[in-house]
């Protein structure tokens, strides 16, 4: 395990509701992911995966615990940084099960939208978007609309969107679920390449057994608690 962390959470708990109806979705979660590392997060339905992902994505606040992104403390036992929206925009990338590209923007602008939202000029944003699209081998579809892309191309565009602001961490929520084995492995290969190239910590939530052997480390979550396991770690080296 690396000494520095892209993301680190310690003793995170999340409780929904109060009193007799309270539900503890996360009981005690510890997790560390180094820059450039890709880890898997697996668990059965109802184990708390989605809640953990939402906490990691700064969409919901943990009830207790600590979360540190790079050197920046995000949550600390009820305290949180004031602007979670800007944090999500600048520090966290998202890749979803379905690509969820904005249907009325072309491929370039789907990717360039994030730097634009961060205040970069349109030209600069599009330049960055095109570089990433080239790197992900979808540069030739830069002017296409999302509906004109194949599933694999759409997923690569969504990876480009997640990477475009150079976030220290990317959360990938079942990114290979709709893909066949070949394309699923291709997506994981890309995530690994991008993690290495951009020093990004990537957490891949998955049920997909065919990609599990690619992770060097896997976190199991069950009943709201995480257990770390060393994976086969074949990776793509």
């Amino acid at each position: 395990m690396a000494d520095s962390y892209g993301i680190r959470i310690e003793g995170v708990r999340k409780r929904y509701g109060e009193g007799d109806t309270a539900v503890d979705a996360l009981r005690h979660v510890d997790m560390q992911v180094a820059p450039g590392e890709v880890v898997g997060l697996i668990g059965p339905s109802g184990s708390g995966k989605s809640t953990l992902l939402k906490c990691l994505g700064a969409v919901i606040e943990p009830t207790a615990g600590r979360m540190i992104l790079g050197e920046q403390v995000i949550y600390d036992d009820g305290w949180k940084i004031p602007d979670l929206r800007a944090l999500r925009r600048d520090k966290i990338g998202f890749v979803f099960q379905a690509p969820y590209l904005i249907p009325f923007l072309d491929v370039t602008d789907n990717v360039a939208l994030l730097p634009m939202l961060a205040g970069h000029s349109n030209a600069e944003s599009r330049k960055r978007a095109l570089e990433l699209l080239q790197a992900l081998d979808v540069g030739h579809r830069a002017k296409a609309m999302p509906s004109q892309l194949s599933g694999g191309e759409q997923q690569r565009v969504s990876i480009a969107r997640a990477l475009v602001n150079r976030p220290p961490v990317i959360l990938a929520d079942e990114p290979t679920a709709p893909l066949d084995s070949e394309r699923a492995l291709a997506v994981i290969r890309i995530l690994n390449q991008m993690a290495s190239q951009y020093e990004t910590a990537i957490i891949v939530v998955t049920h997909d057994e065919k990609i599990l052997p690619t992770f060097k480390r896997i976190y199991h979550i069950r009943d709201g608690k995480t257990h770390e396991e060393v994976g086969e770690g074949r990776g793509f080296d």
Partner: protein
Amino acid sequence: MISLAGRDILHGWGKFVFTGVGLGLLIGVTLTMAGVYRGMIDDAQVLIDNSGADLWVVQKDTLGPYAESSSLYEEIYRSIVIMPGVAQAVNVTYFTMQVRHGERDVRSMAVGIVPGETGQPGWPPYLVAGRQITHSHYEAVADIATGFKLGDRIKIRRNHYTVVGLTRRMVSSNGDPMVFIPLKDAQEAQFLKDNDAIVQNRRRTAENPNFNRPGVPGLLDAVIASQSGNPYVNAVLVSIKPGYTAEQVAEPIRRWKRLTVYTHAQMESILIEKLIATAAKQIGMFLVILALVSAAIVAFIIYTLTLGKIREIAVLKLIGTRNRTIAAMIMQQAIGLGLIGFAVGKIAATFWAPIFPKYVLLLPGDSLRGFVVVVVICALASVLAIRAALKVDPAEAIGG
């Protein structure tokens, strides 16, 4: 920053254009209603302006001759014309009727004028074809909106008239085109009884021993003649001499002749504030209802379009888009829809206004006000959709 609203509209332009066309037709109807109201006011002003009068002398305590019936003895003009400051005083009659032309009839206002010099008050101020009335009987000058042509034979009550001249924009306050005929014919037509009634009246008079005295020859004929004639007119139109104000001339007529006299401004006030007030209120109500319907349509469409983009909005929020950016996107779409609608509505109103039976006056100022109202309504109508969008939880973009 790119325009999210603009891109969305371009992406789904068919949906926006077709919705905008539907909305535009509604806006076109709204603009036309406003145009009908303006047309009514313009008709009233044209009626006053084209009469050529500075003063209207009418029966005491009436709002005649346009808003109420007014009856003056025809010889009264002789005593008015010698009043200080009076340049001309002429009798005139007005009555609305169906003027027959062949197999059809046309709703018109028949105006009785004194044949004489061109430019007298009450005369049509200009002709587009033909000549003015020169004979004392059976000639007519008609507004071209009647559809009559030079040489046409038209029937008013029992008599036939030849159309010798055509004029334009000579209408009543209801928008009915005017037909000018000689005053004597108009007086007769206004109070003409049917033949049976005349015969019955003569018989009753002849049987009355007070009128039919053997010792007073000619009495019966004189009485019958006085009963069959109509020595009344509706108003005396007065033009004043230079150097006099309307009020200076009107006041002595009111005082000494015990008549009611209206100036140009007073007559305009009667027509606009009294005669067309109810119609104006009705049109106002229509405008309010149409505005509400338009607002409801825009609100419903934008709300539906927004609900169809909930997932995209959740993704936008998750990746850090500000609420105000999302709100601006929805509001811009609503306003964009309004702009399409306004353009379609303005074009539609411009094209269909000339074929409306009533005069539709589309003023640039009304269009500008309509444009502002459309933009405001669309902005307000987007509030519901914006509320729905702002309630979207970015967590919805994440599964589970």
